[in-house]
């Protein structure tokens, strides 16, 4: 035992030990000076300068690289293609090239990109165009609706607008703000490089994205990954669930379920400024005799179960908001969150948040059937 005690004491940190006095001897010694401070040497100044210098140099270099490559199109340097899909410009270009006005326009985020205009035509007999874009927000919907209206004035249009539980309020995408057509309709309400963006561009996600962009441009080409048909549909979509995707789908669902459990979504910010573009777009559509169909995006059943377990305050708040809006605007709400309502399959997801084309067809069939005549 004495040996053990001795060896324990020998492990105690070197340095100045402060012993207490008192009735019982102090067994627990807590030094105030660490070993590194007990080294008698010159060069502490150079050590401190090297530490601060290396740290700042690395951070500044990373920031500069990411601003130059601009993988998320935040800084607007535009030297290289972005890591995220540059589909806003593509979709606006496709609208410009359309020879005749589409009867139905699909709006929304990447979750709505699987919607096939040709399938809508089969269902309704009307022509259609898919204007959904990556991370699409109400500002995108606003610009698209205005642009379609300006491009084909005096032509009636119908809209199917896919939104998530946050009602597409995530601000203005820098790509949209940079596009001349976006600038025109946003009236200078663009984006600027903020302090929060500095944080994003110091972070590892941005550096990895920059690396991917650089690698792709150096080794292959700088062209965009996705291709679109003239009607805005994805050229080579995932038509059906593939068995080899099973593991990645399950992993994606597990990750999202874990994330929801760890950080359950809170009630959204009800600041009216957040909904400015959403309401402005509804007002614009109603003013042109359009009654849009707003579709709540589907959620994978496993994720939905966890969200419901945590109260899903976001959904309740969004539904209450939409209900309140009915007093001022005319629109139809189709709730597609629960896939069992429209016969969706839990396997027909490309990942935890995106349904594939086969499920999208089922959803579109349901939307058309429950659109209360708004698509005719």
């Amino acid at each position, binding site marked *: *035992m004495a*040996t*053990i005690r001795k*060896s*324990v004491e020998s*492990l*105690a*940190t*070197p340095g100045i030990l*402060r012993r*207490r006095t*008192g*009735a*019982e001897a102090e*067994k*627990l010694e*807590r*030094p*105030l*000076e*660490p*070993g*590194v*401070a*007990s*080294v008698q*040497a*010159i*060069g*502490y*100044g*150079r*050590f*401190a*300068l*090297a*530490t*601060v*210098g*290396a*740290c*700042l*140099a*690395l*951070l500044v270099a*990373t920031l500069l690289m990411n601003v130059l490559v601009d993988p998320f199109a935040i800084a607007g340097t535009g030297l290289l293609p972005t890591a995220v899909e540059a589909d806003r410009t593509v979709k606006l270009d496709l609208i410009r090239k359309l020879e005749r006005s589409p009867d139905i326009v699909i709006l929304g985020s990447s979750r709505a990109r699987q919607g096939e205009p040709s399938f809508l035509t089969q269902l309704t007999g009307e022509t259609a165009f898919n204007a959904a874009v990556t991370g699409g927000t109400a500002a995108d919907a606003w610009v698209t609706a205005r642009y379609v209206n300006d491009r084909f004035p005096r032509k009636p249009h119908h809209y199917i607008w896919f939104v998530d539980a946050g009602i597409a309020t995530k601000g203005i995408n820098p790509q949209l703000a940079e596009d001349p057509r976006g600038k025109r309709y946003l009236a200078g309400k663009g984006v600027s490089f903020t*302090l929060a963006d500095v*944080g*994003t561009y*110091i*972070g*590892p996600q941005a*550096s990895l994205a920059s690396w991917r962009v650089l690698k792709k441009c150096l080794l292959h080409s700088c062209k965009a990954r996705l291709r679109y048909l003239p009607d805005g549909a994805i050229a080579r979509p995932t038509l059906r669930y593939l068995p080899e995707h099973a593991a990645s789908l*399950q*992993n994606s669902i*597990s990750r999202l*379920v*874990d994330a929801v*459990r*760890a950080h359950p979504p809170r009630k959204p910010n009800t600041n009216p400024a957040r909904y400015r573009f959403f309401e402005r777009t509804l007002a614009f559509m109603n003013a042109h005799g359009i009654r849009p169909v707003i579709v709540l995006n589907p959620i994978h059943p496993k994720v939905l179960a966890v969200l419901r377990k945590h109260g899903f305050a976001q959904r309740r708040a969004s539904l209450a908001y939409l209900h309140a809006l009915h007093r001022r605007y005319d629109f139809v709400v189709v709730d597609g969150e629960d896939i069992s309502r429209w016969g969706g399959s839990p396997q027909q997801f490309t990942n935890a948040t995106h349904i594939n084309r086969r499920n999208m067809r089922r959803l579109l069939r349901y939307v058309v059937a429950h659109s209360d005549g708004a698509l005719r």
Partner: protein
Amino acid sequence: MLFNSYLFLFGFLPPVLVGCWALRQKNLRLAFLTLSSWFFYAWWDWRFLPLMLSTTMVDYVAALALQHTDDERRRRLLLIGSLSINLSLLGYFKYAGFFVGSLNGIGRALGAPVDLPDLHILLPIGISFYTFNSMSYTIDVFRRRVTPTKHLLEYTTFVALFPHLIAGPIVRFTDLAEQLRRPRPSLTSKAASVGLFFLACGLTKKLLIADQLNPYVDRLFAHSGDLGFLTSWAAAFGYSLQLYFDFSGYSDMAVGLAWLIGFRFPQNFNSPFKAQNISDFWRRWHMSLSAWFRDYLFIPLGGSRRGPARTTINLVLTMFLAGLWHGAAWTFVVWGLFHGVLLGTHGLLRKLGLTPSSVFFNRAVTFLFVVAAFVIFRAPDLGTAGTILSSMLGFGGLDHAGALHTFLPARFLILLGALLVFVHAAPNTWQIRARPRIVYGLATGTAAAIAIMTIASPHPFIYFQF
């Protein structure tokens, strides 16, 4: 405001450092540090600042009153008054909801019509830490071990100093008294180097190790029912390492920040996983808390002077309260009691001369018990803890290939293996005695920069909840 946030590192810290060293006059500097620390605290929720100020003033006045009287009865009343106020505030904010919930639960179990309304009380951040700091001062003054300061700014700085304010280490007035009385005139290059070194080590531990383990551990605990023998042990090891690197990382940052503003804090971790018995573990893990409970609870209860039975009872009672200090939940209570029983058993075995002599065996057994106990500490409820512990004992069977593939990706296993070797073989931050070479400075700065890059989505420190 988190230490691991851009706001703290680039918005709060630089002006505080400049202000601190620009103000050479003692009162101005202490006032500046107090106000900065209050601002740091109020950033989280300004409504709780008056609560901290009340605790500060109560103990400041009580200590001065204790100094001015020799009447033992009056002194005792003053101490009881001060402790009652401190403990009442702590009890209300931290434990009221727990006790109401527990009473309702007991009532329902007994079929009694007890249905007290649920209390939704927000826990003020750091209340356990600053209350214990402040209480130790009054008790030390009562014991005549400390001469109370009349200088209000010295006392407000002692309680509120931002590096230790919200998650320790629990400093005593004796630790800082002289440093507050005679603040250092300037920041030396040595102090700056030590401060930066500790800050960089802390950031690295927290951001590059603890936060990297977090998603794997969260996932394992979220699927407690699906865990087999290997995955349950991985959950236990993973969380133990995450907690150690998280909290010791925070303590390193606190020590580094203290050095940068001219203070010295005592060591809080001394390679706890190298402990050779459970008593040794508590001399190495959260040392400031262990010392607090020993000096202000265990020894006043009689310590180990009244025979083995009483010593065991004192240990169990002390550890029960230490567990409860960590949080108002039955998991913490059981965790504390488990450690109390381990300490009592170890004490008895040592008295009987039945402790093994093999250092390797002692370290391994101690480590396994500590890791198993952390499962109770981490689990959301006792049922989950029981499920994981039974899987660790083999009652959940071996894991099937799918579970191993899902829960134990290669990256997690490599990280776990490397960290297990590291905590058992490498020296801790306090033991490193490197010479201040430029190349080491470059390495330290690079590590800090890489850690800072991962801040984009910060995780709060685990010990903030306590």
